[in-house]
């Protein structure tokens, strides 16, 4: 079976290499891709949308419908992980582990058991390793800057590489970093499960809602120039602002989906302890 798989893989690979020889040369100005639509985007994007980064304009404006369903795919992925993994019923009674901070003594408390009355206990994971001071401190110092950079990436997507997707992933990664460097419960305390799931769909709703608003104002779905009367700007700036609104929606949806997937995968759907 393995040999057949290897043969098939080599054959398909050889076919791919053979087909790749027919590609136009890299950055060939006479290639079909560079002569059909690209010149229009390169010449007209700035005057039609006033967005200097053509990639952002194409993604969120000219092909906004495509990007909307890309966001929906991300949302569905988070939903699928949630539906497959999340368990609300516990099979065996759960034992919690507590550590006395001053002495380092670890207690295992069974379901229904009680801790000795003291404030010096902290809850720990069952596979607990001593906290590394350097990792904890560095992560705590870095997370605000990571989040600030993510906001910059979302807001500055008009002018530089970046946008909702990348910024959202970086925002989500900052919370995931918190969950890894401290523990899952700390991260869930900051970003509760219900809020996370709610924001996930709110992000997609912002995108689709902007499109629907354009429809209500009398133009095509996702034609942001309709927003001119709402935003009190001319129709070109309205397209630029429309892209920003949509990017924020994408950012929220992607951030929350990343956190949602991580929480469900790392805790096996139980949300009690993570990596």
């Amino acid at each position, binding site marked *: 079976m*393995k040999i057949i798989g290897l043969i098939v893989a080599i054959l398909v690979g050889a076919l791919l290499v053979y087909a790749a020889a027919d590609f136009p040369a*890299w*950055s060939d100005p006479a290639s079909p891709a560079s002569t059909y639509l690209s010149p229009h985007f390169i010449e007209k994007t700035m005057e039609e949308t006033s967005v200097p*980064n053509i*990639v*952002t304009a194409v993604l969120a404006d000219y092909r906004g419908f495509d990007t909307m369903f890309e966001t929906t795919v991300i949302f569905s992925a988070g939903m699928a992980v949630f539906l497959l993994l999340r368990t609300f019923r516990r099979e065996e009674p759960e034992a919690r582990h507590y550590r006395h901070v001053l002495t380092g003594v670890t207690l295992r408390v069974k379901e229904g058991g009680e801790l000795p009355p003291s404030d010096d206990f902290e809850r720990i994971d069952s596979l607990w390793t001593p906290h590394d001071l350097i990792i904890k401190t560095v992560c705590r110092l870095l997370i605000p800057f990571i989040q600030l950079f993510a906001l910059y*990436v979302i807001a500055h997507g008009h002018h530089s*590489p*970046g*946008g909702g*997707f*990348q910024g959202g*992933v*970086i925002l*989500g*990664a900052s919370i*995931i970093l918190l969950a*890894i460097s401290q523990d899952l419960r700390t991260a869930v305390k900051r970003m509760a499960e219900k809020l996370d799931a709610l924001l996930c769909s709110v992000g997609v709703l912002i995108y689709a809602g902007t499109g629907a608003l354009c429809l209500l104002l009398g133009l095509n779905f996702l034609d942001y120039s309709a927003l001119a009367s709402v935003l009190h700007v001319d129709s070109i700036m309205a397209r630029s602002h429309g892209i920003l609104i949509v990017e924020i929606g994408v950012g929220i949806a992607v951030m929350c989906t*990343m956190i949602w*997937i*991580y929480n469900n*995968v*790392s805790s*096996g759907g139980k949300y009690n302890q*993570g*990596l």
Partner: protein
Amino acid sequence: MVWPIDLAILTLVVITSIGALMVKDLLGAAILFGAYSFMMCLLWTVMGAVDVAFTEASVGAGVSTVFFVAAVFRTSRRTKD
């Protein structure tokens, strides 16, 4: 494109992708996959597709590696074949 950089990156892409398939340790495969994603990111930067490279760096090399590590943590670390 500068061909020595291109050659070095492409070689590393091939090495890391074959390594990720061959390695028995799933955690190692996840890390190798992250390295592969990062090499792809560099390749796209060399070709001038900076937006795609940015997405690959954040999604491919960053978050998906964490997802793989989390998934390996919840299953067994060694493969059977």
